[in-house]
């Protein structure tokens, strides 16, 4: 991609992600997680190549990098039909926005309204 070297979410540099480091027990899965700045870069690329929706996805993903695997799976589950009430979705949207995930928060806000109207809430 760009000429700058990439960092993992953990802050480790790509060049430090080596087989030797794995064998030495110096790698964790966080060292293999993409950094939000990288996703932002990919978002600008997607936008420049006529796909603003893909860019928006990457930007939501950049926010989700801050959450644990369990929490991401929990968010997914909450958005499935008949899991949460519209109010719960709206509240979650508020919470996510407050925690610095406004784009994912917006997804929940939007869902809250539609689920209400289409009777998809719990």
């Amino acid at each position: 991609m760009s000429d700058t070297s990439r960092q993992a979410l953990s802050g480790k540099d790509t060049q430090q992600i080596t087989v030797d480091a794995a064998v030495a027990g110096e790698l964790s899965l966080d060292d293999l997680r993409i950094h939000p700045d990288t996703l932002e870069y990919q978002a600008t690329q997607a936008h420049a190549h006529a796909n603003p929706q893909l860019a928006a996805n990457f930007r939501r993903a950049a926010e989700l990098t801050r959450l644990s695997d369990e929490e991401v799976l929990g968010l997914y589950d909450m958005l499935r039909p008949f899991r949460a009430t519209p109010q719960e979705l709206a509240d979650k949207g508020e919470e996510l926005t407050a925690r610095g995930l406004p784009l994912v928060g917006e997804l929940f806000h939007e869902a809250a309204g539609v689920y209400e109207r289409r009777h998809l809430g719990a």
Partner: protein
Amino acid sequence: MSDAVGRFRFMDQARVNLDGFAVENVELGLTAFSSPHDPIPSITIEQGRVTELDGVAEADFDAMDEFIARHGIDVTVAEEAMALSDVAFARLLVDPFTPRSEVVRLSAGTTPAKLARVLSLLQPSELMMAMTKMRSRATPSNQAHVTNRQDDPLLLAADAATAAAFGFREIETTVPVLDDAPSNAVACLIGAAVGSPGVMLQCSVEEALELELGMRGITSYAETISLYGTEQVFIDGDDTPWSKALLTSAYASRGMKMRVSSGSGSEALMAGSEGKSMFYLEARCVSLARALGSQGVQNGGIDAASVAGSVPKGVRALMAENVMVLMRNLESCSGNDALMSESDMRRTARTIPIVLAGSDFPFSGFGMIQRYDNMFGPSNFNAEDVDDLLAIQRDWGVDAALSTQDPTKIEQLRRQAAQACAAVYRHLGLCDFDDSHIERAVDAAGSKDLGTTDTMAVLNAATTIMGSGISVIDVVTALEETGFHEEAERVLAMARARLDGDYLQTAAVFTESMEVLSLITDPNEYAGPGTGYLPDEHRQHQIDAIRQAVTVDDLRREQAKSASDLLHALGPAEPSSDPRDVVIGVSPAVGREVFTTLSGATVVEVVAELLAGLEEEGCIGRIVRFSDTVDLGRIGLSAAKLSGSGIGIGLQGKGTALIHRRDLSPLANLELYSVAPAVTLDLYRLLGINAGRHAKGARPDPARNPYNDEAIEARYHTKVIALQALERSHVVTNAIPEELSQEGIR
């Protein structure tokens, strides 16, 4: 149908008649391109907001409409795009002067119903043009299924290595037993890394488990995020567009590539089509896919391909689905992954236009295992068809991303893969496999060749992987510590690549040198003849050099295996005046380089029968080699002129034979055995007898050429050309006929 005439009783036996064909039924959704219930395309935009979509007002939007309206439409071009007539829009797809980017720009402003109408206008050849022009990535790629009935890890590893070696850049595995999934993923990860660097892996299972395997770095992409074309079926699938959007971002947030899956017929199968055509419902899915921010779509019927195939124009619609994805500037992974017909001809016809046009992935799962081992159900093409696709690729000079492989190399890779997998499983305390299991996996053409395996051990291994949190880092460490350094590097390189995120972009695959080819780095710029992707010289050679191709030298070596010094030359042949004398004229390479005929019988055996037949009629045969021509008519006529009876037999080394008479012109012979591969020794005996009868002036019983239903020319024409080349290399102008020895022949 037993009272039908024989012609129909015969036709009823054709395998195509095992397929189901449905009368179109709009209410059941059994219609390909159009239903009276499909909406008329329309859009209303007020202050930059979509307030009406395909005839539905904002207040009545269902969940799909809502998501598409809010996220999927470029409102700045919508009015321009929707104002284009369907025909005018359709023509842009095949007009070489309209660049792909312009079609993409306009398509971004279209509603589902609009694109459905536009694409329904394209004829098959136009769909092919459109696919060639619109595909996202210039260089074609391909995906393989690797599974087996026993979830045997060593066989999975060996088969994944095989698939990678044959050129597949994505491998998709799945399970017959859900809990085995982590083991299958690890085994395929190791095998793929043995086969080639840069092969992406997916394990298609329930969505949470699939994501988990990805988060652990074991798999690198996902594609079974299913979309459906009506709100009801969507909800029945336990998702909404918002949950799918979250899932889509979840994959990207872990640096994993993903695409969604949809495809005609799924709604009809679930009795949820609402009377809409399959293609319109698919158009909604594709609009939604773009709206979600998925980089690509797997469609083209997929599991319900045969539903589309059951109605008129259904197969055409499957390809149109792929083109629709490309118009939305997404990656097309183009189906052909479910066996859609019992007929080889029909299933091939469904797939070939896509192979010829070139999609981002012509198959969203070519079954690189035998049909019975494909745990997705048989793909439309499977291991049974690899050589066919390689030949088709070569026939048409197109790149379906497959490469012929040398059997020795594949054996080595399979052994390396099975050994690496066994080593990792032992090292991680998952399972101990003995050496005989490794060797059985290396040699097995399918899991039936493995014999009985310990399936509980596999389940235990999978449970341990899940329970102890084994990740790609553990696999890398185990590979390195058991001596599989190269494989450790390759597995880690795939995990490291997710830090760059380049392979999240549209239509991304890795080359063997870990470069990403995608819409961004390898854009398709096809703009008519003389443009677009063409295989480079190296790649063209890979396509052309299938392992079955032979040269004259190959044939010479094969002939040399049956070389003998029988039929050696005795000296110049003299004319005879004996009325019982019949000359058997043979071609220039006989006794020199051509020893075996196309039927597999040796020339000596054939000559022995001819001599015996002549003897039965009281004649005496002589063997004479004519080295001045390869033409059988002239050889036979020369033989006749030399023989005391005036009757000659001509015999080419390849086995073609005739009877000639000295007063005839070269091409006007008495009997000709033209189908050399099918001529039996009994028939050569009959030819000898008939020649004897001609010599005596008696009436012969003419032999019937043994025609059969084999593609005799396809089987033998290359050999014929090579054999004739050998014959010609022994031609000497004005050569004197030589009498050959009969010693040891009879």
